[in-house]
């Protein structure tokens, strides 16, 4: 954890000299921690001399920030108009049903988080989903379970490697790329 706060200090040091960089700092902080829990918000408020209410106001205003931890793989189903008219809603529903997500967005095992996302601008390939940073275009409903299988397999393979090397660097586990 200390390591993460040290990284955060570096980020704040880099951006705080210029005015109006709170959003940038929060984005970097989210990259470091995976999400923005209250403690991180308070820490940033203290370091930047911005009231914590204002920091929280910004965090809750923008859809890219989240205050709950995310699954290891973020599945984002694009809900732009082009994807919507090509059936994106059914694909989102299929993912949620397949992963048994009812009210929550993250699976109980913490592997997948399924969200809809605003237009990512790849409308020519609609319907589009992104898994982590990878874009999948022209996704059909039949592909949903195939995609999930692929990432589950990756996960199992990673676990096997883990068993052999118990000391896995902590920072990679919660890393969520910017833009999700």
């Amino acid at each position, binding site marked *: 954890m200390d390591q993460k706060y040290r990284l955060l200090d570096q980020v704040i040091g880099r951006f705080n000299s210029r005015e109006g960089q709170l*959003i940038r700092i929060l984005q970097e902080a989210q990259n470091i921690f995976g999400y923005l829990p209250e403690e991180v918000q308070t820490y940033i408020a203290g370091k930047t001399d911005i009231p914590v209410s204002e920091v929280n106001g910004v965090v809750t205003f923008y859809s890219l920030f989240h205050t709950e931890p995310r699954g290891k793989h973020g599945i984002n189903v694009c809900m732009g108009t082009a994807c919507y008219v090509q059936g994106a809603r059914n694909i989102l529903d299929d993912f949620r049903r397949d992963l048994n997500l009812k009210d929550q967005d993250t699976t109980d095992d913490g592997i997948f988080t399924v969200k809809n996302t605003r237009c990512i601008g790849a409308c020519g390939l609609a319907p589009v989903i992104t898994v982590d940073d990878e874009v999948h275009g022209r996704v059909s409903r039949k592909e949903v379970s195939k995609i999930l299988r692929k990432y589950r397999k990756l996960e199992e393979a990673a676990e096997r490697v883990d068993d052999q090397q118990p000391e896995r660097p902590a920072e990679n586990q919660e890393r969520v790329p910017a833009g999700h």
Partner: protein
Amino acid sequence: MINSLKDLQKIRKEYLPDIELRQNKDIKSQQINIMVCTGTGCSSSGSKSMIDGLEKALAGSKLDTRVKVVKTGCFGFCKLGPIMVVHPGSIFYCNVSESDIPELVEKHFARGKIVERLQYEEPDTGEKKKSLDEIYFFNSQKRVALRHCGLINPEDINEYIATGGYFTLGKCLSREKSEEIIDSIKKSGLRGRGGGGFPVGLKWEAARLSEGPEKYVVCNADEGDPGAFMDRSILEGDPHSVLEAMTIAGYTIGASEGYIYVRAEYPIAVDRLENAIAQARAYGLLGENILGTGFGFNIDLRLGAGAFVCGEETALLKSAMGLRGEPRPRPPYPAQCGLWDKPTLLNNVETFANIPEILSRGHAWFHSIGTENSKGTKVFSLAGKIVNTGLIEVPMGTTLRQIIFDIGGGIPGGKNFKAVQTGGPSGGCIPEQYLDTPVDYDSLKSIGSMMGSGGLIVMDEGDCMVDIAKFYLQFSQDESCGKCTPCRVGTKRMLEILERITEGKGEMADLYELEDLSREVMDASLCGLGQTAPNPVLSTIKYFRNEYEAHINDKECPAGVCRELLNYSVDQDKCISCGLCAKACVAEAIIGEKKGRPYFIDRQKCLKCGACETKCPKEAIYAQ
């Protein structure tokens, strides 16, 4: 470091041969340039691994010295990606994959023979097209803002300079007065491309006349309209044109700092911008004493964090200062009171991309394109139910029919056209009878829609217009910042009514209520988001009233989209009684016996989730 126009000229000379080769001015050249699109569309289709494969195949071969692989911006034909264009000859290949590389290298690059199987086929004639210029999709366009997309490597400032880039800046700084620049832009008739259509020259003049020692230039790259990707493609394909225009703007209005507010959802665009800014700085084209004229200008990025309302100018400025992006009433306009309360000039990406070309080719040239009150060209993104999804640029005044049916190739799957939506959540749905409307700012407004930033979403008979209205309203309601009541509460109430209607619980009185509420939300909202949010609802009620009535009176969705009004059935002839549907059904609503008689669905139990439909290998399950 570039200190004068002479230095610029030197670089231009060095890199010009490649550019001329790509413009087919040097058709006999022994050199080969392979242009591969690395925009978001083609990258998603695998263009990056293709480039790696190409470079690997060429490295160490005899071709290495004469063949150059160039990453370039969007060609616009996103559907056929990854796209490759080989010069000389502008040979066009589509849907190229890594496995095609050996054949391309051996046949085309080494022996000059074209690989026919990767050529584009004109859909109505089936004719194979050799070069880019022979393809109707390309030769029917007029590219001004997109002039460098597909021509240069956006990550190399030298190539931009070779096309004449930064010379306009040099000319403005050394010879022109601010008044002359503003006068040229005014005379060109350029209007803001972000959607509002405000005359750009007037905006620049207002910012110039505002008093103050500090001023700012801001570029709005927060392209939030779902289904629009014009600005993204310009930033990915030609970032320097925006930097050059912003610097000219800074000189003209007396600003020394600029900001580009760009969506974080566009990672490639952000990378290219950062790279372009660093290169321009290293050359001294940004920073102090540009081209030895004593004028200094800097540009910094501000990343958006996913809020549609930040496309509105006052909200954008708040967000660029690191605050919640809530709009405020105007006046004062940003030209008087903008970033940190200082005079600020705010233009959109496409507007800026037009500026260097207008100033270098002259306002009369630009003025000669387009309609009476809308000059120049406009970039549109084509998406939805259209054959050629992608990006096009056409003169203002081109009709919707030409755009959708000629350039766009019409509707796929032999279906019928129903409507085209322009202007995103702020615009309206335009039915078939207005397809011959020439597209410009005023004509679209007169039929209840708007230009917006240029997203065109085509819908066919399989799309339910009530559902589309609900979709857009859901978007506006979700993105409403909550500051003013008419937008925050009004859009919510309207959405509830639409949900009732699509669930078959609507009454005719709901329609009148919707229309009344729409007018109130439009009149009383603080910013453009609320003022235009009812447009999709009003336009669909106006042009597709019968669909609303079918949902309300007959409890039917004619297009077969609204789930609550659908019934799933099994086609008894197609069913092979494999049982996969019954296994997928969580409600146990599908009854039958494996390898027995066809299955059937118990409508009392059916949740209408559609899971069975996706699992059926014979497409025997359908909704009606």
